[in-house]
C-alpha cells in the first residue's frame, strides 16, 4: 500500500473517475480508498440495480471496478444489461476465488482485467487502471474528433451554399448581359444560346446595332471556366459597349473595325494580368449593302456560312487575344448571299461531336450544316445540343440569318 501512496502523487494530475461496485460495505470502502490512492475519483455503488441505474445516466467514467461475486449480479443480467447500455467503459472484475472458468467468461464477456483477492500486486492493478483510462481517453478523443468533423462538415456545407448562391447570382448577372434573343432587324434575325458547364461561363456572345445600318457582333471563348473566365467576358462586353458609345460621343470608328476591336481586346486582356486569353470572332454586318466584315482570333470552329449553294467555313487566321502583345489579325470583307444563315459556335461544341480528331470534327461539323441547316432550331437538334445535360465545356452558339 505504501508504494501505491508514494506513486499516487505522480499520477494525481491525470486522475479519472472510477465506478466501484460491491455489496459488501467494508470491502467496497477499502477498494474505493485503494482506487483513490491510485489516482481515481471513486463513485461507490453497493447494489447492482443502483449501479445499473447510475450507468443509465451515461456518466463520464474512465473505468468500472466491480466485484464479481456480488449479490444481484449474475452473468445473465450483466451480459444483457451491458450491451443494452452500449457501455464503452472498460471493466475490471475482482473476485475472491481464482476460478478459471469465471475468469475466461469474464474476459470473453469483455472485461479488461481480472483480479483475485487478496490484492497484493497493487502495481498490476495500477497498470490495469492506467490502461483503462488511456483506452477511455482514446475513445473520448475519437468522439471529440467525430464531433469536430461533424461541425466542420456542417460549416463547409454552409460555405458551399453561400458560394453556390454567389455563383447563382453571378449566373443571373451573366445571363442578363446577353443580348435579347431573337433580335429581328428587318430581314435579319439574330439569336443565341449559351450552355455553361458550371454556373458561370467563359463563353460569351453579343450583337447590337451601330448607327442605322450596321450590326456588330462577337463570339468569345475565354480560356478556363468559372468566375475568372466570366469576369473576362464582362470586360469584353464592356469594351464593345464603350466603343459603341465612343462612336456617338467622340466619332471614334473603332467599333466598325473587327481588327481594331480585337487589338483593343488583346491589350485589355493582357493588362488584366490574370493569365486569361480568349479566342474570338468579331463581325460587322452592313445591312444596307448586305456585306460582312469579320476577323477571327484563333477561334475554332470557324464561322459557318450556309446558303443555297451549301455550307462553308469563313476562313481567317489570327492569334487568340490576351497572349502576345504584337498580335496580328486579318480583316475579311465578303458579300453575303440574299438568303443565308451564319452560325458561330464556341469550341465546346467540338467536344460533343463523335469524331476524335479535330480535323475530323471540323469535317463532321460542316457536314451537319450541309445536310440540315434550315433553321437554328433544327441545327441545335442535329448537333445534339438539346440533349446535352452536363457539357464538358461551355457551349455558346450565335445565329444570324436573313431571308429574302
Amino acid at each position: 500500500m505504501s508504494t501505491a501512496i508514494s506513486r499516487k502523487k505522480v499520477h494525481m494530475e491525470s486522475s479519472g473517475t472510477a465506478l466501484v461496485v460491491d455489496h459488501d460495505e467494508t470491502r467496497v470502502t477499502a477498494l474505493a480508498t485503494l482506487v483513490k490512492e491510485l489516482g481515481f475519483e471513486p463513485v461507490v455503488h453497493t447494489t447492482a440495480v443502483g449501479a445499473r441505474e447510475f450507468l443509465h445516466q451515461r456518466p463520464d467514467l474512465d473505468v468500472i471496478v466491480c466485484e464479481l461475486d456480488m449479490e444481484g449480479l449474475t452473468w445473465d443480467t450483466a451480459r444483457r444489461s451491458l450491451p443494452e447500455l452500449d457501455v464503452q467503459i472498460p471493466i475490471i472484475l475482482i473476485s475472491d476465488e481464482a476460478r478459471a472458468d469465471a475468469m475466461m467468461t469474464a474476459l470473453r464477456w469483455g472485461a479488461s482485467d481480472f483480479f483475485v483477492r487478496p490484492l497484493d500486486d497493487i502495481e498490476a492493478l495500477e497498470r490495469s487502471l492506467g490502461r483503462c483510462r488511456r483506452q477511455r481517453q482514446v475513445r473520448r478523443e475519437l468522439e471529440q474528433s467525430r464531433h469536430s468533423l461533424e461541425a466542420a462538415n456542417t460549416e463547409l456545407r454552409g460555405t458551399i451554399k453561400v458560394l453556390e448562391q454567389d455563383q447563382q447570382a453571378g449566373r443571373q448577372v451573366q445571363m442578363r448581359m446577353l443580348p435579347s434573343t431573337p433580335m429581328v432587324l428587318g430581314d435579319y434575325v439574330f439569336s443565341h444560346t449559351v450552355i455553361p458547364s458550371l454556373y458561370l461561363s467563359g463563353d460569351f456572345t453579343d450583337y447590337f446595332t451601330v448607327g442605322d445600318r450596321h450590326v456588330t457582333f462577337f463570339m468569345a471563348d475565354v480560356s478556363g471556366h468559372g468566375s475568372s473566365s466570366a469576369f473576362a467576358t464582362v470586360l469584353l462586353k464592356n469594351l464593345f459597349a464603350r466603343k459603341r458609345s465612343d462612336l456617338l460621343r467622340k466619332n471614334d470608328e473603332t467599333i466598325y473595325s473587327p481588327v481594331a476591336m480585337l487589338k483593343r481586346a488583346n491589350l485589355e486582356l493582357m493588362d488584366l494580368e490574370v493569365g486569361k486569353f480568349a479566342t474570338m470572332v468579331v463581325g460587322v454586318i452592313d445591312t444596307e449593302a448586305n456585306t460582312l466584315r469579320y476577323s477571327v482570333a484563333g477561334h475554332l470552329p470557324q464561322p459557318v456560312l450556309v446558303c443555297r449553294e451549301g455550307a462553308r467555313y469563313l476562313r481567317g487566321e489570327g492569334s487568340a487575344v490576351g497572349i502576345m502583345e504584337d498580335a496580328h489579325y486579318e480583316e475579311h470583307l465578303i458579300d453575303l448571299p440574299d438568303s443565308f444563315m451564319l452560325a458561330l459556335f464556341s469550341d465546346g461544341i467540338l467536344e460533343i461531336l463523335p469524331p476524335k480528331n479535330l480535323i475530323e470534327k471540323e469535317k463532321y461539323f460542316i457536314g451537319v450544316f450541309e445536310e440540315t441547316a434550315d433553321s437554328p432550331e433544327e441545327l441545335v437538334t442535329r448537333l445534339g445540343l438539346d440533349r446535352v445535360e452536363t457539357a464538358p465545356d461551355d457551349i455558346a452558339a450565335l445565329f444570324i440569318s436573313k431571308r429574302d
Partner: protein
Amino acid sequence: MDGRILAASHDGAYVIRMTGDVRLTLCTTIDEYFQKMFADPGFTSVWVDLCEAEGIDSTTLGLLAKLAIKVQDKYGFQPAIFSCEPGINRLLKSMGFQRLFDLREESCASPENIHEIPQVTGSEDSVKDKVIEAHRVLMGLSEENQARFKDLIVALERG
C-alpha cells in the same frame, strides 16, 4: 486516354511531353516546374513533344504560350514544339502558335534527324553538340523507360 504531362532534363536541355487528352484543372505543378527550369543556370533549351497528345485544353495552351513568351524574353529564342498529329497542328496554328514556337510537324520518332535545336543564343559549338546529344537521349525515352521522365509526372483526370 487520360492526359499526362511528363518532363525530363539532361545537361540543361528540357523536354516536356504531353500525352493523351490533356486537361489541366490544376496547373500549379507545371508552373512550379517551369520556374525551376528557369532558375537552372545550365538551362540551354526546351522543347515540347506533342506527338502523343490527343487533345489539349485552353488552360494548357495558355501555359505553353506563357512558356514560349518567357523563353523568348529571357533567352532570345523560340522553343520548339514537335507535333505530328494533324488535329493538334490545326489547333496550334489556329491559335497563332507558329508565331510563338518553332513548330516542327515532322515525326519526332526519329531522333537521328534532329540537327538543330532552338537554344540560348551564343552557346558555343561544343555546347550545341551537347544539347543535340541531350535531346537525342531524351527523345529516345520511350513508354518503357519513362521512369527517366521523373522530374514531373502529372496525371490529371478529365474534368
